[in-house]
């Protein structure tokens, strides 16, 4: 098995490090395995697995959640959510820094993607923070760190991917993501307050309860979206895919008929952009079919489970090891690749030692999200550095306290299962 694994992962990692697209590296490594170990994986199976990877209606939920977020973003929701966040906490010292975090928390409820969050919030907040005298690198770092909340609070695309690959209920995974998502917001807010006090960042005057209520009212329709998603899934009124489509339709209604900020051409642009963005994820899922097939035939998950049970019978210790592996891999691989290639191998291992797969899901998703803000390839670093027009180095330095609190929260998720499991158990039993 060692030789087979070396070929499969060696080819994949080699091509990834060269810079070839991830879907291509996964596909070629699977094909290389099929050629070298020809009788094990016939040619017709290669073509079949490139279809089977995506051969489920549930995966249609991914483009639908991309679409809902894109429509809300183009339909003026970011400005409303920022106004609400400013009215709520803009008056505390370092107000704009905290507004950035709070806006990302509420934006997370309409978008399941970190890139969308960083683009939407960063495009407004980074220039505003720079204008008020915050260092550009700090503005970029707080935007990057808080954008990681987006894929944890439902609707969340990584949680959907994990649920489908780990064969768990999407509704339960969404509920499991609520407390960790709110926790991410709180620890980032705490770090933002601590840094702002130490550095004496400016405070804005309190705008009054009237402005707070008005800002809350204008954002209320957007803030209803995550409630619709979770309520729809928990009640069983519709499937995940249908909920995704309903969320998109709701976004169209709110932005076109209520806010009146989305024209028909802009809607079409949003649809095309969401389709293209979702393809980046869908094609990786499609080709991962061959990888899963080979791994399953090798019995790798079974072997790993045996090693894990021999290592320790304490689920928290094994989960901590999994967390460390994912944190390490997350520094070079982005979340979707980890969730479709590595996590399916880990799920049977985790279950063998008594780790709840729902808890594993929140730990895995948060561990992979930390990778988005850690060097060398954390893409949020480069995205927000470009927005702030600074080099990546200072942004990485400014990010360190935020990364530290996210890792502390991750450790809490590992050792306190209730943080992930309390809400799913409350609603699903």
């Amino acid at each position, binding site marked *: 098995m060692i030789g087979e694994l070396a070929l499969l992962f060696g080819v994949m990692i080699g091509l990834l490090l060269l810079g070839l697209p991830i879907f291509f590296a996964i596909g070629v490594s699977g094909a290389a395995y099929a050629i070298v170990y020809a009788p094990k994986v016939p040619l017709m199976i290669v*073509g079949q697995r*490139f279809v089977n990877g995506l051969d489920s*209606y549930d995966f249609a939920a991914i483009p639908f959640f991309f679409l809902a977020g894109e429509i809300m973003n183009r339909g003026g929701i970011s400005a409303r959510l920022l106004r609400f966040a400013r009215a709520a906490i803009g008056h505390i010292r370092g107000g704009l820094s905290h507004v950035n975090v709070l806006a990302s928390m509420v934006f997370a409820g309409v978008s399941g993607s970190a890139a969308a969050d960083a683009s939407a919030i960063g495009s407004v907040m980074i220039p505003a923070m720079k204008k008020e005298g915050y260092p550009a690198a700090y503005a970029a770092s707080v935007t990057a760190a808080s954008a990681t909340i987006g894929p944890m609070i439902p609707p969340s695309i990584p949680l959907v991917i994990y649920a489908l690959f780990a064969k768990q209920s999407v509704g339960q995974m969404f509920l499991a993501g609520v407390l960790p998502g709110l926790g991410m917001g709180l620890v980032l807010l705490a770090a933002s307050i601590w840094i702002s006090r130490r550095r004496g960042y400016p405070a804005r005057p309190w705008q009054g309860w009237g402005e707070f209520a008005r800002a809350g009212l204008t954002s209320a329709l957007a803030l209803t979206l995550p409630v619709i998603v979770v309520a729809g899934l928990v009640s069983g009124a519709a499937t995940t895919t249908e909920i995704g489509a309903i969320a998109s339709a709701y976004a169209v209604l709110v932005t076109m008929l209520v806010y009146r900020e989305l024209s028909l051409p802009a809607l079409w642009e949003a649809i095309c952009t969401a*389709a293209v963005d979702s393809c*980046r994820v869908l094609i990786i899922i499609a080709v991962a079919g061959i990888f899963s097939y080979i791994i399953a035939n090798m019995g790798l998950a079974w072997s790993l489970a045996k090693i894990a049970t021999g290592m320790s019978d304490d689920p928290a210790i094994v989960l901590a090891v999994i967390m460390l592996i994912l944190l390490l891999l997350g520094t070079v691989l982005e979340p979707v690749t980890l969730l479709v290639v590595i996590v399916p191998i880990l799920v049977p291992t985790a279950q063998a030692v008594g780790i709840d797969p729902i808890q594993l899901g929140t730990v895995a998703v948060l561990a992979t999200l930390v990778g988005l803000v850690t060097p060398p390839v954390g893409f949020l670093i480069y995205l927000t550095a470009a927005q702030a027009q600074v080099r990546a180095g200072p942004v990485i330095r400014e990010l360190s306290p935020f990364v530290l609190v996210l890792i502390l929260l991750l450790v809490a998720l590992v050792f306190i299962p209730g943080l992930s499991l309390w809400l799913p158990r409350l609603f699903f039993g």
Partner: protein
Amino acid sequence: MSDGPLPDSLRTGAARLRRLLLGATRHGLGAGLAFIAGLAVLQVVLRYVFANSITWVEEISVLVLLWIAWIGAIHLWLDRSHIAVDLLLPHSGPWRARLIAAFDLAAVAGGLALAWAAEATIAAFGGVVMGSLELPGEIKFLPVLAGGIGLALAGLVNLLAGGEGGS
């Protein structure tokens, strides 16, 4: 004047073809997504308002989703915007253009190999009838065949057009 081994007219023609393909695939992907989203909403409305449902919605949606994924792969290759690990490329200096050309060559070879594998799968599934619509079983594998051919074409167009960006 040409600054490489290819004549300017060929480069310009390839760049124009790349723009055309990018536009066509982008709108095609948008149409596909709008179609399956519309179907899903219609299904919910039919179920709750008319106590009825369409049996073939999931089957057709999965087919469209497969086309979206593989046409999207072609679009993203043309646009050079697939998700990738950017460790080596930003530091490759004068080798950058050669590396990118090598990637495009890999797409041509990989695309043709994929089309070959898809063709073998289609042949194996010929005659099988699929789902409630009783569609031929091989229809599911056509997006992979198209994706393979399209990837090879995208690699070739990018090679001829040169440069780093599609859109």
